[in-house]
C-alpha cells in the first residue's frame, strides 16, 4: 500500500516539476509514453492505482481548460463562472476516463513517437503510431504554446484523423441548440 502511494506521489511530483519547452517535446512525449506503458503492463498494480498514476502523468501536459473552451466554441461566453468551473471539472474527468479506457484496450501494443511537425510559431503536432494486433493507428498530439509561460501543452488529440475536440464540439453545439447549459453539464 505504502509502495503504491510513494509511486504515485513521486510520479506526480516528477511530472509537475517540468514545464515543457519546445526542444524537449519529443523526448518528454517518448518518456511519458514509456512511463504509461510500463504502468499498464505492471500486473502487480490495481486498476485504480494504475489509473491515478496515468492521470498524474497526463495532467501535466493536457490543458483541460483550453479543451473545454474550444469544445464549446462561441457558447463558452454564455457560461457563468460557476458553470465554467463545473463544466471543466466534469469534462476533464470524462476525457481522462475515456483516455484510460482506450489505453487499457491497447495494453500490449507498441507506441512509436515519429516526427514533430511545427505547424506555426505556437502550434506543434507530435505524430505517433500505435502498432496494434492487425493494424497501425496514427495518433497526433496537438500542442500549443501558452502565452506567458511559453510552456507547451496539449489541446487536442487526433486518432486516425478524428479530432477528439472536434467531435465533442459538434455534439455540444447540437445539444445546446435544444437543451440548457445545466443539462449539458449534468449529462457529462
Amino acid at each position: 500500500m505504502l509502495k503504491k502511494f510513494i509511486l504515485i506521489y513521486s510520479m506526480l511530483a516528477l511530472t509537475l516539476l517540468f514545464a515543457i519547452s519546445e526542444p524537449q517535446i519529443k523526448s518528454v512525449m517518448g518518456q511519458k509514453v514509456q512511463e504509461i506503458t510500463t504502468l499498464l503492463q505492471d500486473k502487480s498494480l490495481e486498476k485504480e492505482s494504475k489509473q491515478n498514476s496515468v492521470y498524474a502523468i497526463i495532467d501535466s501536459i493536457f490543458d483541460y481548460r483550453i479543451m473545454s473552451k474550444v469544445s464549446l466554441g462561441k457558447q463558452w461566453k454564455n457560461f457563468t463562472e460557476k458553470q465554467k468551473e463545473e463544466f471543466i471539472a466534469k469534462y476533464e474527468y470524462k476525457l481522462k476516463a475515456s483516455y484510460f479506457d482506450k489505453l487499457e484496450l491497447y495494453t500490449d501494443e507498441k507506441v512509436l513517437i515519429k516526427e514533430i511537425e511545427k505547424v506555426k510559431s505556437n502550434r506543434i503536432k507530435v505524430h505517433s503510431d500505435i502498432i496494434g494486433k492487425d493494424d497501425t493507428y496514427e495518433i497526433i498530439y496537438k500542442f500549443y504554446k501558452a502565452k506567458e509561460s511559453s510552456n507547451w501543452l496539449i489541446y487536442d488529440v487526433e486518432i486516425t484523423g478524428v479530432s477528439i475536440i472536434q467531435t465533442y464540439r459538434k455534439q455540444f453545439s447540437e445539444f445546446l441548440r435544444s437543451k440548457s447549459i445545466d443539462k449539458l453539464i449534468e449529462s457529462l
Partner: protein
Amino acid sequence: MKQTVLIVLTILLLSACSHKNIHPRTATEKSSLSQEDSFDDEFESEFETTKEVSDPLIGYNRAMTSFNDTIYIYAYNPISKGYAFLVPELGRIGISNFFDNLKFPINFSNNILQLKFDHSIKELGRFMINSTVGILGFIDVASYLGVEPHEEDFGQTLGYYGVGSGFHIVLPFLGPSNLRDALSLSADVALSPISYTGQEYQIPRNFEETMAVQTAYYVNKNSLHLGEYESLKKDALDYYLFFRDAYEQKRDREIEK
C-alpha cells in the same frame, strides 16, 4: 487496413434524441479586441474550418444506426466473443492477415488510379512476399521487412480527384458511409477476391458463399477489436453524431494522405 477498422468497429448505433427547437442564446457580449480574444480566435478558426456534414437523411440514418447497434450488441459481438474464445489470437491475426492480403487488387489498382505508382509497387511487393514467404498471406512478412501497406479504395480515388463526399448515409450492417463511398463500394466489390462478380480469382462461387466468407471476415476482424465499439459509444453524448463526424473526418484524412 486502417479504413476498415472504424467501419467494422462502428457497426452501429442507436440514437433517438427528440429535438425541440428552442432559439439558441444570443451572445450579447461585445468583443473587445484584446489579446485574450485574438488568442481564442486562433483556436476558433482552427476548429471552425471543418466543413459541416450534409445530412438530409438524418431521420433514416438515426433509425439505421439504432438497427445496426442492436445487431452489433445482440448478434455480431456475442458471436465474435465466442469465436475469440475458441480460436487463439495468433490464429485470428493470421486470418486477418490472409484477408488483408486479398485486398491486393483493390489497393493496387486504386493506387495506380491516383498515380501513386511507388505505393502500387509496394503493394505488389507486399502481395508477392506475403503470398509466398508469408504462406498465402497468413504471415505479414512484408511489414517485418519494412514494406508498409498503402491501402486505397475507390471512394478515396474519387476523393483524390475532388469528388465531394455527398450526404451522409448509414448502410445496413456496414455502418456509416456517404454517397460517394457507398456508390464506390461496388467498384471495390467487383475487384475483391472475397466477393462474387464472376472473376476467375474470386473465392466464393455464389451469393451464399460470398455471405459466408464476408461473415468470417468481419467476425474475425471484430474478434481482434472487442470492446472498442462499446468504449467509443460510451464517450459520446449522442453517438449517432459522434460516429457520423468521426467517419467523415477519418475519410477526409485518408484521402488527404
